[in-house]
């Protein structure tokens, strides 16, 4: 059975496509290239998370950054000055926490990131650090490493 669209429907399709293309062009001209930053706001924040904008503007980036990804990823393209605390690949949380202890005891806020919005490891690591009551505020970064990359704070390396 073949489907034949009437000429009227086809012309309507063409009109819609033309309108969409025109709207896209106008938007691009007025707003520039699309904003690819990870959206973050009260509605999308999970409990224990923080937006990158809050860290950079409200906290002046005066935080201790914790990378909760795999060691190889941290070594490859982790945030400059970040510390590794992860449970990935059988790493010992206690051992890494002990190594990070001098920095964590400075009393700064701590922000933990993993790979992206859905990774979840940062929330778990943040919770485990929080359980030690060592630092005043520990949060997981909404959007993770991807948010840092889109803000130009880290570079993806091959």
């Amino acid at each position: 059975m073949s489907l034949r669209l009437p000429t009227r429907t086809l012309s309507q399709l063409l009109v819609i496509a033309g309108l969409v293309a025109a709207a896209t062009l106008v938007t691009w001209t007025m707003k520039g290239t699309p904003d690819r930053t990870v959206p973050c706001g009260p509605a999308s924040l999970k409990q224990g998370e923080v937006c990158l904008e809050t860290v950079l503007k409200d906290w002046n980036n005066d935080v201790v950054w914790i990378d909760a990804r795999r060691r190889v990823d941290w070594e490859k393209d982790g945030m400059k000055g970040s510390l590794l605390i992860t449970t990935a690949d059988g790493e010992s949380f206690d051992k890494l926490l002990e190594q990070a202890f001098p920095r964590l005891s400075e009393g700064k806020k701590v922000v933990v990131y993993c790979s992206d919005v859905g990774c979840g490891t940062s929330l778990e690591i943040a919770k485990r650090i929080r359980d030690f009551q060592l630092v005043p505020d520990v949060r997981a970064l909404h959007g993770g490493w991807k948010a840092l990359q889109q803000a130009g704070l880290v570079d993806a390396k091959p």
Partner: protein
Amino acid sequence: MKRFLLLLGFLPLAAHGQLVFDSLKKEIHAAPDADQVFCDFEFENKGSTDAVIKEAKTTCSCISVEINNGGKLTYAPGEKGVLRATFKMENFSGQVDKNVLVSMVGDKEAEPSFNLVVTVFIPVLVAMEPKTLEWTLRDPLDPKTIKIKMNHTEPIKITRVSMTNSSFQTELKTITEGAEYDLVVTPVSKDGISPGLGVLHIETDCKIEKQKRQMAFAVVRNAPLSAPALPPQPPAPPGKAEPANLPVPP
């Protein structure tokens, strides 16, 4: 025209059927000595077209996912399946939340259709409170206590307590052998120099290896965190403060 626009609006929904899970969040209570636990998420295609699973991704190497029927990914209307998440306990204890992200064909890369959450409760056999002791140089450096309670059917004894910094004195008091202890820690400031930081290692005879060793911290700050800091102190003499080696930042 209206019918055509309506069709366009519903096209994305129709593209991947309508997979429905029995629950998006599940809780598992693990035995303290378990090496791994399973969590089954049952699902059914309640739509009128095939539902095609693209992938099921986990957020941790500690969790793996299998779909029954040999990893079958396409489900006809009314067809049922089971997604099994296997959580390896490793050195976790307490409450652990893990996610399984299920993407359907047609989903955007960063927007999977389902975020399944497995919450695993692993008994904490050796409970310590608090896990960090804090002092400030503005206050007297009085002894402080970490309460240690064993939450197991068998007694768990503390076999060794060690401190990385000799400027902290430790004393273990047995309240009930194998059940309850007080670990008293006293910082000693000589010539007004801060004892700094110390890490406490507590070893027990717990038969479950991953809960055998515990850790706690001792910190003497120049000033409370919320208050302005005191002028810088002279550096601690060699052998006093023994901060752990920091990993090399990238």
